[in-house]
């Protein structure tokens, strides 16, 4: 049977990032009957972004569960389901609505393996769209990856392409530890890409050189990778060769790749949407100066969201880091 969401194709297809996640979910549910999908509106509605579309029809209400409107219940019940032998994939409708679930995530999901001395690992995935760019009401544009990165026991993954999205969601589902899987909603459908219908994984913990260069390294993830690549084009015209590193995993970070690019170029700019203060960019800057200071030709620059609430739509474009701000930061490293 064919429904909108799910691929029945034998050969490579052009998919959006949202569809790629959908295909990854469908493939894993097919392969492993212990995989469950649960969350608000994930069933009949297929998720407000249609990422779980078609799964209810294909796998039925025992494996695709519309839950009550209660995020703590979604994650807390998933903990129990994981202990019962399932691999729940929870959807939190927006990152701005994950806070009610933080007690279950921080006090339990992140700690259960450790607390039980390895007896109860929790193979669970918490998916959530994150970031700005869709002009929604308040609370629909948050980027809170630093919270999860700062919490020992969680892994944090953020794809930036359809191909990675499928490979990473599969890895996340197969991972025996809780994985926070943040999806850049801004590029859910921004572009399509050839995605193999095969069963493949992209390993958690490995960054990707999105484009190589020698003068400066731009480290980004999620929707910001595009801003980085746009900046790279402009820089090329100015005869500046920029390398773009797509982090893909926020925790555990790919320290080798980060240091290699830093040492190779001597100049680093980190880009993310989240606020600056104690954000992921701070960690990257701290690590680089700690471990590669002597190869630095300039201080690591950070291009972040403001230390302010994400604005309502009419001012949204002023909040998000854009190509111009990346260029400005790169210039700083060149002029230093």
């Amino acid at each position, binding site marked *: 049977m064919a429904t909108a969401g799910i691929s029945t194709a034998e050969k490579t297809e052009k998919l959006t990032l949202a569809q790629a996640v959908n295909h990854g979910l469908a493939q894993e549910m097919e392969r492993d009957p212990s995989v469950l999908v649960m969350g608000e509106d994930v069933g009949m509605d297929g998720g407000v972004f249609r990422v779980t579309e078609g799964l209810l029809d294909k796998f039925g209400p025992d494996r695709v569960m519309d839950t009550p409107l209660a995020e703590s219940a979604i994650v807390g019940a998933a903990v129990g389901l994981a202990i019962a032998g399932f691999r729940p994939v929870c959807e939190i409708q927006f990152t701005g609505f994950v806070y009610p679930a933080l007690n279950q995530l921080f006090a339990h999901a992140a700690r259960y393996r450790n607390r039980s001395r390895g007896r109860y690992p929790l193979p669970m995935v918490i998916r959530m769209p994150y970031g700005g760019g869709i002009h929604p009401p308040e609370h629909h544009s948050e980027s809170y990856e630093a919270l999860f990165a700062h919490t020992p026991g969680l892994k944090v993954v953020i794809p930036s392409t359809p191909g990675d999205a499928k490979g990473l969601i599969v890895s996340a589902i197969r991972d025996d530890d809780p994985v926070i899987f943040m999806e850049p909603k801004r590029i859910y459908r921004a572009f399509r890409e050839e995605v193999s219908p095969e069963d493949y994984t992209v390993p958690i913990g490995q960054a990707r050189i999105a484009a190589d260069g020698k003068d400066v390294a731009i480290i980004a993830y999620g929707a910001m990778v595009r801003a980085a690549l746009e900046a790279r084009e402009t820089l090329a015209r100015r005869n500046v060769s920029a390398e773009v590193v797509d982090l893909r995993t926020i925790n555990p970070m790919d320290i080798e790749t980060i240091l290699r690019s830093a040492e190779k170029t001597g100049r680093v700019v980190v880009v993310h949407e989240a606020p600056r203060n104690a954000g992921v960019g701070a960690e990257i800057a701290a690590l680089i100066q700690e471990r590669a200071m002597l190869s630095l030709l300039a201080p690591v620059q950070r291009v972040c969201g*403001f230390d302010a609430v994400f604005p309502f739509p009419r001012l949204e474009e002023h909040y998000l880091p854009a190509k111009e701000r990346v260029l400005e930061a790169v210039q700083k490293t060149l002029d230093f």
Partner: protein
Amino acid sequence: MRVGRLCRYPVKRARGNLVQPEAVIKARGSPKSDLAFETGDKMPVTIIHEARTERLEILDRSGKADEALLPKLSSEEMASLYKLMVRMRRFDEKALALQRQGRMGTWGSVRGQEACQAGLAVNLLKEDWLAPSFREHGVMISHGIPMRQIYALWRGDERGHLFPEGVNCLPVSIPVASQLLHAAGLGLGLKLRGEKSAVAIGFAGDGASSEGDFHEALNFGGVFKSRTLFFIQNNQWAISVPFHKQTAARSIAQRAPAYGMPGMQVDGNDVLAVYAATKKALDHVRAGNGPYLLECLTYRMENHTTADDASRYRLAEELAYWKERDPIDRMRAFLVSRKLWDDKKGQALLEEVSAEVEAEVKAFEAEPAAPATDIVDFMYKERPWFLEEQRALLAREAR
């Protein structure tokens, strides 16, 4: 090191007479549980609690009223209930039209819930506080917030939230149920201030009732007897999730006993019933008897928001069924049957509210966007150094 030496809280080490003499405890009012003297004496099976939950309906769907229950309202007051609802609907329809034209952001329609919000609105005093969720436009414009501000808000402009001085309404709260706690705290604040009339209204939907904050708010309000009316509009859907998947309970109203407060359900498409029920509930709260849980059983006639497509999960026949129970049609039928309303009045009213709505649209659309620096300017009373730097960047880019 002796294990556990450090792990006692420093009871024994702090200064002063820590062990409170019984007298002091008594003087403060014994904290002894009122249950402390209840077991081990009686036998065998005792009924410790009984509860019944009622639903009030006054108008049937054809507009025929139960005379016995009819609230004592003058003809004008009856008509004004109707007028309020028509004004809300016109306001709402306009927003949907603007949204289709790309002149409005995501809009959550109040269509179908006008009776809930009008029936409440006419019972409100100026000094009452609203703690709205995102679908309370109707009662908000009735409580004194200019339409233009709510339009501006959903068009994506924070300045819409700068409500006129003296209009007691909190900003729209989007994380469902969370505002119920603000209403509980505000209601306690009003009590501590010695208010004798003002109360706080906390709004939430059927979906929101599953959140932990719903529970904590009602329980907190109950314990402190806060001056709060918990006003639940059960429109039977939470986006695509129907009420019977939201909870195994048959109603929200039957949760009142769980918090030691009174509660009831009312036909939310029957403005006279909502009027009567709200009046009863507010009398209870205003008198200082503590909070009240009122559930309005209504129906969401539109998509969840303009970002939603309800035809994916909802049957057309269900919608048709509820069209026949439209709160506005029902009240009009009632008024007409009593010769309190006619087409001429209807025409005049429509022209009046349409003119108002158009003027408000003009006004909000005339507003230029706020300066980008507004992003950082309202975060703290004084801007810390990093926001000064970030403000400079925004200002630079603006040039």
